[in-house]
């Protein structure tokens, strides 16, 4: 019966495996850090977006207030007679 296994050149394979572990440590390290970098970018985008949203909200409020003031001023300047009294 043909038994499974039987690595033909066990010593060589063992050395290769060892080298492989070390190489992969480097690869894993790089890939993890790339992912961390990417994670950071995603989070940065999200935070920036919500910060911008807050800013936008404030600008909206200001804009509306300014609009109101503009209308009020325009009604006043349309009637210059009022200021001559």
């Amino acid at each position, binding site marked *: *019966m*043909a*038994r*499974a*296994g*039987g*690595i*033909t*050149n*066990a010593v060589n*394979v*063992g050395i*290769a*495996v*060892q080298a492989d*572990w*070390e190489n*992969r*440590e*480097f690869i*894993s*390290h*790089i*890939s*993890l*850090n*790339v*992912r*961390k*970098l*990417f*994670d*950071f970018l*995603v*989070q*940065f985008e*999200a*935070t920036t*977006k*919500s*910060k911008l*949203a*807050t800013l*936008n*909200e*404030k600008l*909206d*409020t200001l804009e*509306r*207030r300014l609009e*109101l003031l503009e*209308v*009020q*001023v325009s*009604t*006043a300047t*349309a*009637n210059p007679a*009022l200021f001559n009294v």
Partner: protein
Amino acid sequence: MAVPIEEAIAALSTFSLEDDQPEVQGPGFWVSAEGGATISPIEYSDVAAYRLSLSEDTKAINQLNTLIQEGKEMGSVLYTYRSCVKALPQLPDSMKQSQADLYLETYQVLDLEMSRLREIQRWQASAASKLAADMQRFSRPERRINGPTVTHLWSMLKLLDVLIQLDHLKNAKASIPNDFSWYKRTFTQVSVQWQDTDSMREELDDLQIFLSTRWAILLNLHVEMFRVNNVEDILQVLIVFIVESLELNFALIFPERHTLLRVLPVLVVLAASSEKDSESLYKRVKINRLINIFKNDPVVPAFPDLHLSPAAILKELSTYFPKFSAQTRLLTLPAPHELPLREAQDYQRQYLIVNHIGAIRAEHDDFTVRFASAMSQLVLLKSIDGVDVEWVKEVKGNTYDMVVEGFQLLSRWTARVWEQCAWKFSRPCKDPVPMESHDMPASFSDYEKVVRYNYNAEERKALVELVSYIKSIGSMMQKVDTSVTDALWETIHAEVQDFVQNTLATMLRTTFRKKKDLSRILSDMRTLSADWMANTSKPETEMQSYPHSGEESRGTLFYPRPVAPTSAQVHCLQFLIYEVVSGGNMRKPGGIFGNSGSEIPINDLKQLETFFYKLGFFLHVLDYTATLGTLTDLGFLWFREFYLESSRVIQFPIECSLPWMLVDHVIESPIIGLLESALMSFDIYNDAAQQALVILKQRFLYDEIEAEVDNCFDIFVLKLCETIFTYYKSWAASELLDPSFLFAIDIGEKFAVQPMRFVALLKTTRVKLLGRTINLRSLIADRMNKMFRDNLEFLFDRFESQDLCAIVELEMLLDILQLTHELLSKDLTIDSFNLMLNEMQENVSLVSYSSRLASQIWTEMQNDFLPNFILCNTTQRFVRSARVPPVPVQKPSVPYAKPNFYCGTPDLNSAYQSFARLYCGFFGVPHMFSLVKLLGSRSLPWLIRALLDNISNKITTVEPMITGLQEALLKSIGLLPFDGGISGCMRLAKEHLSCWHSKSELKAEVLCGIKEIGSILYWMGLLDIVLREVDTRQFMQTAPWLGLIPGADGQILHSQEGGDSPMVTLFKSATTATMSNPNCTNPTSFHTISRQAEAADLLYKANINTGSVLEYALAFTSAALDKYCSKWSAAPKTGFIDITTSKDFYRIFSGLQIEYLEESVQLQSNTYEMLGDSVAWGGCTIIYLLGQQLHFELFDFSHQVLNVAEVESVAISPTQKNPNFLQGIEVLLEAMKKARRLNNHVFSMLKARCPLEDKQACAIKQSGAPLHRIKFENTVSAFETLPQKGA
């Protein structure tokens, strides 16, 4: 080399990335860097490097995997296949001649669709033959090649699963044979002109047989497999593998488990149908184990809306496989629809999430806490240098354990959702009871029966809860993805190394020493995965820190390296373990690990088994994000292709859509905690869209999902805003109710508002939906701005449709709205209330002083209040006259609005309505308060001016009429003589006034005019009272700041003469104090504050001494009367008082007064109710202002009559007179007395409020000589002239 990268990445964490966004959505997977562990991205080409002679096996695996991939795509084509026959046009009779063209066109269209089916037919044939060949090759007893590996077994099972699913779909889809028959018909029509169609026809017949035969794919596979009769062994191995995996149920995530459950019944049928000994299977696996598995899961999900039932499959297949039909024990298993009631209820209990939600909730809470603490430990670990190695190992091991537990939880929960769906699909609601009874459709579609009416409120709630648990844990785990990765790698590395370096070493030394071939396998395992150098790569010092004493017991020490084994390594390790335990012999009886006859001791077997299954799970852990994505994917809840086809509709309404049902349930249900899960339910759409695009690859499905999401999200925001608005409104309304009153009444709880938390939703600025980012907060803010405006508009509309008395209610409702605004502004930025109020009042312009409300009040006064309301002097109220107005006032009907435009809930509405009802019948001081508050100092002057103008207009209109009356008056009217008695006096008075008989209309109009003038003046009086109170209150508030002290007689004294007021002093001293401080950075702002204080001081001081509105009104009236002075108050020619010939105003009024007094007594016609007390106010004011008060009091007819009566009552005893007549006289006298009292009251008020200048008049000396132009004092203190008692 790696250090700079690490430092750079670490530097990133110094950025502040905090935003206070609540976690209300599930995880989003942007990029998955992994996915390489479970499916080898390089197709196991690295396996060859381990020199295990597995190249044949690897080739086979890759071939099968390609087939699986193709098969899945075929499956999605078939699942999303929609009948196109329905869309084919029919020709009208007039175009019958072009029928042939139509056939050709139709043929071409259908041919495209049919070619896909043909492709499926071809593919399944080749897949079946390849699978069969593969099985045959690897199950040869002589065993010339290594394999099959465990990965290979999995691939076989997966391919089988794909084939079964395809078969099942083909059976279930009715539209396919339908389309095909249509296609065949057109083909017959079209092919008439073609030559050489035989081969095509043959192909067509083949396809027809394939499509119309149930289980055609399976039957074909069976034929292929048993061409050579030696696959029984491998079938048995597969069955044993499935049964053991399912029974252990440790390393399986739910998609794998479902795959095994789907494949098992078919494998059993195939194995039993073998020609050789079918009973050998049951020797290896007891039939009870199979039955248990089938009984545990009577329904297995296959496609989102399509399930499989093992029992039903067994039954159906038994007709095709005669050998199998002998297995009565398997065949008597009931299919889901045949379950007896009791068993069905048991299953129901097992399947329905609602029965488990309590336990799930506990698991969730427990897990969240432990996971979070594990994460914080990990963070802590990274922040400290030089920590104990054991502790590091423990923390990282704990992290690994938590991740595994999280995956298992998620897998269990998501499987529950799948299985509940399958169960629900298998048991449609028998008797649908629609929640909205008003639209009762005649029949329900099947989909409505299985989904819409099949989930009751509790079940929906449980499902929402579970969905949000899955999503929130998913997003929690996804967040820490990169920070746990190296810990996971390290732990897995440690586990593997521990096994190969320690456990295997022990085994080699002990049990396997004698067994050469087995120990060779074990040492191969070490060779291909051991990382011997890991313990030397670290500095020696650390190595020495290990306690050497424990070395013997713990084996070799190694330093864990954050690198995980590759999938090839895991693959080989699994293969080798399998080889060890099975001995490479498929015929070996018994199970894989649960084997008694093995030569390996039970202890080692156990260790091998545990490690074997752990290896399987390592792959899922390594594929961290990919596994999370699979486990939290709930997109299947949306898909309904199968039901769409069977219901013959294009798409179901969104009410039938499960995701929307969940969202809707969240909003509609009053359960508070659920609210934040609303957005989690929208994640189902995200998942569904992802599936449509990536897995099913169908654009039209994505479009449908997108359309539904667009619609749903709009409705969601709308409903959410309604809920938010209602909640804040009722909160405000219940705040404004008197708490002590609420406490005292029994039903007080009805008016309390259950607190709700909208904060999280209100904070959400980014909702991720189908790749878009939506700013929910700004959407809500926009809608709220609009809603507040709409509500204001509605309140004004409502006021406009009611009379002036409704102003108190208006103020109340506006107050509630304002408080609502205030409460909501704490959580949301919305426009200021005043801005909105001004906008809706059309009062934005700086130069307009009227407003919508002011003009409405003015119109209302002019058209309704002044003509139709009468004054009651005693109660200080105006009430509506009982007289029907000549011209009914036209008003818009009351607009309709939802309860939240009033006070929120219906209960609160009724509470407030009963308050408002108290004020709706009259106009008095409370109304005046509301009016002053609502109009404010801006529009009030405008209204006053309009009313004053009205007075002067009225005087102008009345003037010609009075002239008419003057002209008609007798030339000479003397004093009433005493000798005629009362009746004589009355007769005489009547004779005097008989000249007016023909002018009754004129009289009435004059009276009305005077009444309106009186009403306005009295109204001003009320206004004056209210303004005084408001001013006083303001004075009390400002006085201490302005340094004002009320003096003895209404004077206001300044506390510090010439100096600054306390407010200015305070700010000035604060400024100097700050300036003297050298640390002060911004002194100018303090200067500004101090200057502003001075300005405020000036402004407030100027406001202190406001004039009286009433006095102003009287002065204005006086000025208006000046024009008519000559006509109404002719200076006597003689210089003496003109008694007989005077036609001055007082005489006219006196005549009018006695006539209407008499009328009111005699006719009982309630003239009084027509005119009220304001006639006296109008008449007396004019008399007073004309300087005729004394004349009036001297010569007034009723005065004279009363004087006579006084004398007479002394002279005659009442008994002598006719009682009836006497009574009439008595009543009349009473009325006259009352009128006199009233007149006196008015005069005294006028004297107090509007002292006339000293008048020049004539006096007669005692000697009888006239004395011209003497001055007499006209000012009398009001208190001296108050109406006397009994007068």
